[in-house]
């Protein structure tokens, strides 16, 4: 169906734009064809109303016959035939309207006067059809370019997202080798722990691979991943690493981009726990506040620490992903206190599926 017909507000606007045409048409009938004034306006009202809908019909041939499509002959022929048919239909319906008017005794002879105007009106009908077809082509071209633009933008967003996900899926080599070293140490002294750590590590690696391929995952799954990671690191750091979780039940089902939190948790270990002699607590908090989701990760930090190479890369990637996916709807704040560091995310909570 024609897009204008499918939306009542558009249709009303479209028909309103024909009112001046109807007025001009009435004046033309009165002045040029000496039709009595009242009758000229009555004729014009009916004819214009019908014409408004006949013009919309130009949409179908215009769509069926793309401007850059088949040969010129076919194109011209299609529209010539369509113009003749449209004009004919218009005049036939117009005749019916005038016949209706003629029933009123005051407007005797309206039919005869109408009939005498038929050749001129036929040309007017063809012209209107062609004008409508031209406008439809313009609209189609504009819509197409808008679509192409949208598509290009979507592709760009998808490409950036894929790039960031790929970046994210890279396992931190320090983490991997240090974990393997811990397993190697446990193998002789505590084989059961060594086996448990192998399983935790495998679980974490597998989840990273699988989750990265999905569009959105419930926050609960992202938190599980982070906690699996922290369990592995806990073997390595022992009592230096403590974990606290403060997550509202209501936030758990919120969909989030996969591996969004993971870089923050890895940073908390790498730049926090690993840089302090005594270690400390990594706290993960999440809550849902209406349509917003707040997530934060905090960790202890060494106030005298040196600037470490690579610091900030993970944070920039997370901020970049948020910007790609949510634009200005999401924000990331990193707050460095004297001996603590806090990263807060604020993003749309999304529809819970």
């Amino acid at each position, binding site marked *: 169906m024609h897009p204008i017909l499918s939306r009542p507000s558009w249709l009303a606007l479209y028909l309103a734009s024909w009112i001046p045409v109807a007025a001009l048409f009435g004046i033309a009938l009165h002045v040029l064809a000496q039709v009595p004034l009242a009758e000229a306006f009555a004729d014009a009202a009916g004819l214009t109303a019908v014409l408004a809908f006949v013009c919309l019909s130009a949409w179908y041939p215009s769509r069926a016959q793309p401007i850059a499509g088949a040969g010129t002959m076919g194109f011209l022929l299609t529209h010539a035939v369509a113009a003749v048919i449209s004009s004919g239909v218009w005049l036939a319906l117009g005749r019916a309207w005038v016949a209706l008017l003629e029933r009123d005794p005051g407007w005797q002879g309206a039919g005869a006067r109408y009939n005498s105007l038929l050749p001129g009106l036929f040309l007017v009908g063809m012209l209107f059809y062609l004008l409508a077809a031209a406008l439809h082509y313009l609209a189609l071209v504009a819509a197409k370019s808008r679509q192409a633009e949208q598509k290009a933008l979507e592709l760009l967003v998808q490409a950036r997202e894929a790039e960031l996900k790929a970046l994210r899926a890279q396992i931190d080599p*320090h983490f991997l080798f*240090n974990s393997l*070293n811990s397993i*190697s*140490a446990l193998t*002789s002294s505590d084989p059961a722990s060594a086996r448990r750590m192998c399983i935790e590590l495998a679980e974490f690696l597998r989840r990273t691979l699988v989750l990265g391929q999905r569009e959105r995952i419930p926050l609960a799954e992202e938190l599980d991943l982070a906690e699996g990671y922290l369990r592995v690191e806990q073997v*390595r750091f022992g009592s230096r690493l403590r974990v606290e979780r403060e997550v509202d039940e209501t936030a758990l089902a919120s969909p989030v981009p996969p591996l969004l939190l993971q870089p923050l948790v890895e940073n908390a270990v790498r730049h926090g726990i690993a840089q302090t002699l005594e270690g400390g607590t990594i706290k993960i908090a999440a809550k849902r506040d209406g349509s917003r989701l707040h997530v934060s990760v905090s960790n202890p930090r*060494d106030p005298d*620490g*040196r600037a470490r190479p690579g610091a900030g890369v993970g944070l920039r990637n997370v901020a970049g992903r948020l910007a790609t996916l949510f634009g200005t709807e999401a924000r990331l704040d990193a707050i460095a206190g004297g001996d603590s560091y806090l990263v807060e995310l604020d993003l749309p909570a999304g529809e819970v599926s």
Partner: protein
Amino acid sequence: MSAPTPLRVLLVDDEELARRVLREYLSRDPGVEIVGECANGFEAVRAVSETKADLLFLDIQMPKLDGFEVLELLDRDVAVVFVTAFDEHAIRAFEVHAVDYLLKPVSEEKIGRALARVRERGVAGPPVSRLVADAKPDQPRPIDRLLVRDGTRVHVIQASELDYAVARDDYVELHSGGKDFLKHQTLNDLEAQLDPERFVRTHRSYLVNVERIAKIEPYAKDSRIAVLHDGTQIPLSRSGYARIREHS
């Protein structure tokens, strides 16, 4: 025939499990005596003096002081085997004449190879701390903190907290927040390490943090002094004055 003196070995790693695996391998070698274990760089600096260790198994990434910084602060000759998780420091380790450079997870064979090298080469050699000071090409500059050893203690001074430094023969006297520290380093070397935007050589023997300068006053005929916010007066040479003016 008496058994050769065992190698005195010190293990330095912030992870208990990493030390545990080294201890396990090394304890099987009768020619090795483990004289201590340290969980951080500060402990390591002290333990090297106290235990008279011959050989350090040294992790690179540790809190507070990394492995290279530990070496910089040592006052004794000691052979070093670096043990690290990821191969990104190999060139620097080679430049400080490390005996070996092992990657985690470490195998017993590699430990054996490292011990053989130490025995072959002997623990004597150029003092490692001097070598570190001479060869730090990939150390990021300007540095953002200074390490000063005071007996067995280590002070960490943030570069931004340094007010000024004075040359004292082979040492520099570092002034920070009313306290002063003596460090074995030349003023030229220190100047090269610090941010030239922040630290200006006002005199042959003075390097000053420009943010601390309150005003410049005439002193005697044709000469001036810089006065710091805490009232300290710093001599300005003719060229030093020109550098300060260029700066502001």
